[in-house]
């Protein structure tokens, strides 16, 4: 009887485990938090396994005549269009390359939290002296890995093999370079804009074809778009720190602030523009109801519960990577995309995140790897990889793809001038630190100026240790 009970319990636990793994959604392109990133892991791993085994058998047939150089590549795209695209590109490379290289592509899960994008497994592999030939890294982490001496500088190899990143956007180039050396080959990029609900604009008597351009207008619109139901928020106009507005970078740059002085290699988080931006967020929260508004905002959901998707939030800053989400959860949503409003009219600035291929220290077959990376940056591969999930880092290819698409114009303009997070070896700590500052400021635990000054002091101290 007791054994039966134990067996039943075990079976129940397994069933629960299966259910827990059932839902999957992964986007490795964004740096925004994504709670469900871990849940897609097992499914995605299974997918990769099956695709690579198909590729394996194909390679077996070809490799009968001569010895192939096999290179192992690690990436972080879970299931979805990102994974399909990368597999398609790799298959083509395996079938067509003239260097007799066979690429073994592997999905490696990120650290479970969406907050930290470090690949723990890669760390262990490099430390043990047996790294994969190529690994994909988020560009704001490239400096950390380079400073640790864990990835190879690529300039010589690139030159010998005729690989150049000159055709890339500035943000992609900056994101690949640490202290003058190129450490990563850009793979993709993402970009942020103001999303606004046209129907809600019309209902509030605003022109749906005239989105706000300045911070002043944005605030004015936000108030007009907020509808209270007694003490509760029935509809809100804007939550500045929701989605891609969460990183202080977004508003700091919109207020004309600077986060980093490259010439002196110092962070400038106490820059007047950055302080003003954070102060604006705090003031905005206070006008909207203070603590009540902050608590309401932290309970906002995602996917089908996403307030912008279900029409209870009128404006939000988000990335192009969310377009697919909107299509999935509410295809009828009538929304527009516009440049991120700025303090001064006409000075809109967005920022780009992106991923790049790196060669870990001590990796074998570096020549073959560079040949593969050259292909991945070619038009052939990039046209397969471009989707609304991510842009190409190469100016020319995006323009060919989206040049005539009116709705994407906002991104085509933004990509040209977009900022990129500081290339410092304390990128992750800085990211977490800025999130803490925002959190503390919104909960009234210190003024924006004090908080940013303190963080700036401690971060610069840490940065000095790398000089």
């Amino acid at each position, binding site marked *: 009887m007791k054994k039966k009970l134990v067996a039943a319990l075990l079976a129940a636990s397994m069933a629960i485990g299966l259910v827990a793994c059932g839902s999957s959604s992964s986007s490795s392109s964004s740096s925004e938090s994504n709670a469900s990133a871990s849940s897609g892991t097992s499914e995605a791993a299974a997918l990769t396994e099956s695709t690579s085994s198909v590729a394996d058998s194909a390679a077996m047939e070809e490799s009968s005549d001569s010895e192939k150089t096999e290179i192992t590549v690690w990436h972080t795209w879970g299931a979805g269009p990102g994974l399909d695209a990368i597999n398609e590109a790799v298959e083509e490379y395996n079938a067509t390359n003239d260097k007799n290289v066979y690429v073994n592509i592997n999905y490696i899960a990120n650290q479970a939290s969406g907050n930290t994008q470090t690949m723990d497994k890669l760390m262990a592999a490099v430390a043990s002296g047996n790294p994969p030939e190529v690994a994909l890294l988020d560009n704001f982490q490239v400096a950390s890995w380079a400073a640790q001496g864990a990835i190879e500088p690529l300039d010589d190899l690139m030159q010998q093999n005729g690989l150049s990143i000159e055709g890339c956007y500035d943000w992609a180039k900056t994101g690949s370079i640490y202290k003058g050396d190129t450490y990563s080959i850009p793979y993709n990029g993402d970009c942020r804009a103001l999303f606004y609900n046209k129907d809600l604009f019309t209902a509030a008597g605003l022109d749906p074809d005239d989105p706000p351009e300045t911070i002043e207008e944005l605030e004015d619109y936000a108030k007009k778009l907020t509808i209270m139901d007694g003490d509760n928020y029935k509809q809100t106009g804007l939550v500045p720190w929701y989605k891609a507005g969460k990183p202080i970078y977004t508003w700091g740059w919109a207020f004309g602030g600077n986060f980093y002085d490259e010439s002196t290699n110092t962070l400038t988080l106490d820059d007047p523009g950055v302080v003003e931006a954070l102060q604006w967020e705090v003031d905005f929260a206070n006008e909207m109801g203070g603590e009540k508004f902050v608590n309401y905002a*932290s309970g906002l959901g995602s996917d089908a519960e996403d307030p912008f998707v279900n029409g209870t939030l009128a404006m939000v800053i988000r990335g192009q990577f969310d377009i697919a989400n909107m299509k999935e959860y509410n295809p009828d949503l009538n929304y527009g995309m516009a440049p991120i409003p700025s303090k001064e009219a006409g000075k809109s600035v967005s920022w780009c995140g992106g991923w790049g291929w790196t060669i870990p220290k001590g990796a074998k077959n570096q020549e073959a790897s560079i040949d593969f990376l050259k292909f991945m940056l070619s038009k052939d591969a990039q046209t397969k990889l471009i989707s609304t999930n991510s842009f190409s880092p190469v100016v020319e290819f995006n323009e060919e793809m989206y040049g005539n698409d009116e709705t994407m114009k906002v991104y085509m303009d933004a990509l040209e001038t977009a900022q990129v997070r500081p290339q410092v070896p304390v990128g992750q700590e800085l990211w977490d630190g800025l999130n803490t500052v925002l959190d503390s400021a919104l909960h009234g635990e210190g003024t924006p100026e004090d908080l940013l000054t303190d963080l700036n002091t401690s971060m610069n101290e840490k940065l000095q240790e790398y000089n």
Partner: protein
Amino acid sequence: MKEKQIKEYKGGIEARKARMGLIFTLPWIVGLIIFYGYPLVSSIYYSFTSYSILNAGKFIGFKNYKDLFHDSLFWKSIANTLYFSALSVPINIISGILIALLLNVKIKGIGIFRTIFFIPTLVPVVATATVWKWILNSNYGLLNDILGIFGISPIPWLADAKWSKISLVIIAAWGIGQQIVINLAGLQDISTEYYEAASIDGANGINKIIHITIPLLTPVIFYNLVMGLINSLQIFTLPYALTNGEGSPVHSLTFYVMYLYNNAFGYMKMGYASAMAWILFVIILALTMIIFKSSTKWVNYQ
């Protein structure tokens, strides 16, 4: 002469038995030394270096420890962890005993009730965290809806630093099935003779619980106290999954091991994290020793 031979012979058997025993346990011992002993000892060394996993680092003496004492988040994470343990451990022990007493009653279908209370412990912690995130959501959460029926205005469970740790205590109390099972075993171990004797002397139910059950359950309570304390001081998965590793709001859910993990694998400061690990070890050791010392005063064995 003969006796001596027998002795030697016996000694030989003992020695052989010991040798065989050692050989059979060797795989385990080797594993323990390589995978536990070595990392444990080397982490002492690493705590004095700037080791980053990717880089061996330099020997920097007590710098990591000094830096820790000036790290406000380090102190905050200790305060959070102790606060949580001080709330969670007693609540879990008391509710664990109460529920075990209820589940010890001889009624029909008691097995079903026991199963119901044990099931939450089988749910993976990450799934638990996800479900509770919805239940405790301040805007559309189930719990606030239920409270709303009684006219209680919405509580910002996980949104406000004042409530977040209490929320975590509630979630942690959901998984006390393990303790209940141990308590049940302890309850069934208490000889019925004591109860019979007490009944003859005219003791009622409450008296029996206070004067027989609780005192004789103290060895089990002692075990649950020690294990509960060690586990709660090392709490990681639940708050990490609940807050995406951020410990928000305002680091009210940044617990000691979470901060240790972020330092080691997020910021590549393994030396710093090793120093943190040893400080935690000393804290746990000290608290456990205090409990052990005090146990002679309150733990009764049958």
